[in-house]
């Protein structure tokens, strides 16, 4: 089903900064001007404050095309070790497959690395119909869990950088994407690094990986206790 635009509750996860990802959740009752996401087969599971099976969205944000597909999207009780406490929830995307673009649509023909590369990166927004859930359940969400993340950043038709993570957690307060079982590949430069864990600093747009956590590196320099990499997988000074 496609969502309507008026009197909706908007939950927006907005990626900020070059390749940065920052989730902002808020409630909105005004019409919103963007391409409607398509959401299929909404189910009402007892355990969930909100549950969607199958999520597919396409939109233009800031002049850039953004696509997201996920097997499931739900708001459910947050785990505290082995327990759930009713008021505390977390937002989960199961196997999210995100595609974003390096450049604005109108500038896709620019040479890679040109000075006109935009520093803005925006995605995704998910608009939900009012009365579909208890808004209070969203107030207690502090982050987004991404199970099986695949995030491809494309330059025109070509893949530029790919993030894969067995599990990731978007920590809103820290503006940080915490990743486990991660692999980052820069296809343009033929560089790749795999690690057991790492953090994407959303404000600095840099990836931080402890050296002891690295399981594989191809054409990536590693010379310190902790490596700090930009999106070209160049090591930056700590």
């Amino acid at each position: 089903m496609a969502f309507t635009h008026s009197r909706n509750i908007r939950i927006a996860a907005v990626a900020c900064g070059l390749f940065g990802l920052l989730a902002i959740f808020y409630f909105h009752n005004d019409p919103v001007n963007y391409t409607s996401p398509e959401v299929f087969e909404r189910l009402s599971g007892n355990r969930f404050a909100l549950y969607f099976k199958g999520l597919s969205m396409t939109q233009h944000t800031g002049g850039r095309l953004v696509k997201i597909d996920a097997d499931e999207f739900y708001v459910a009780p947050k785990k505290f070790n082995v327990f759930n406490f009713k008021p505390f929830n977390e937002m989960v995307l199961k196997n999210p497959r995100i595609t974003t673009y390096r450049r604005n649509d109108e500038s896709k023909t620019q040479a890679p690395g040109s000075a006109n590369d935009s520093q803005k990166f925006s995605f995704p927004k998910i608009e939900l119909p009012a009365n579909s859930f208890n808004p209070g359940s969203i107030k207690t969400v502090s982050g987004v869990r991404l199970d099986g993340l695949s995030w491809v950043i494309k330059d025109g038709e070509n893949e530029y950088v790919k993030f894969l993570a067995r599990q990731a957690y978007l920590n809103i307060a820290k503006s940080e994407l915490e990743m486990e079982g991660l692999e980052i590949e820069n296809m343009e430069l033929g560089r790749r690094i795999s690690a057991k864990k790492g953090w994407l600093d959303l404000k600095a747009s840099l990836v931080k990986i402890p050296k002891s956590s690295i399981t594989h590196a191809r054409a990536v320099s590693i010379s310190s206790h902790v490596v700090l990499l930009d999106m070209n997988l160049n090591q930056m000074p700590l």
Partner: protein
Amino acid sequence: VSDSTGNGLNTLGDILDPFGLNAFDDVRINAEQYPIPAALPVNAATGADLQAFAVANVLPEVLKAKASADKISSTFNVIWSEPLVNESVESDYGDVLLCRAALDGILSVLYAQAAYDLDSDLDQKANNNQTVQEFLAANPSFGTFKSGAASNLSESKTYATSALVNLRSAINAMQSETDDQTNDYVTLADLTPAEITQARADIADALNSLNGPTFVHDNEIPYEDKGYTLNLSPFFGGTIGSLRALLPSFSGNNVAGGFPDPTMAGVFGAGPRFNLADTTLDSNGFVIPTILSDSWGGTLSFTGWPCK
């Protein structure tokens, strides 16, 4: 609230008075609006004052709460309005067991803190922005074992044991529930049977470690089992005479060397996760334990309280 009298530390409100915090109730009702004094009064409560308050005032209340919780029957069931999201929720005996575990944990901590001298001049610390090095030098008894305090550690161990047993019972009770869990205040998370089994095994490890060396598996990341040996019996047995003697040396707020005893008086056995002898040259040139390095490879700085 403040009683605006100088009759000692008798209530939680009394604790704020000697630190010079605004005494008006309409200010205190909003914790986020507390104006923190630029300088603490010179007669602010000391570490010993706060310890004494915990033993004389807090401990008896928690003991009463625990005694009440222990009387709740296994048929307990109540529907109540949870204020955070303002929805109706159900609490049952599993919640009671978890509550008992939490109270046991608090009691264990209260008794443990009473066994050690934590006296310190807090206004000196705050007003002079003492570094860790200066703070330890100015409070030479801080972190030493109090004579005749072994019974406190014995009580602490008793409640730690009870906390773990009640925690395990809470898991069992919630797992065996057959009614609709939709509105239950506390439920078991959406875990696999293997994860539930592992949680029980972790609790069993923790229980065993109270009495002797126990190998603790790290199952945080499935393919990376960084187990280690934990033995809390030296702590609860009162054989650790000084906690401060286990600290590394400090230069200002920064760690400036390795641990004098990487086993922490026998508490930590060999294991990659808690290999406290592992040292790496940090960015400031100090050879410090890796566990005390920050994630950027530099020396972890202990800025103390309050941060200025």
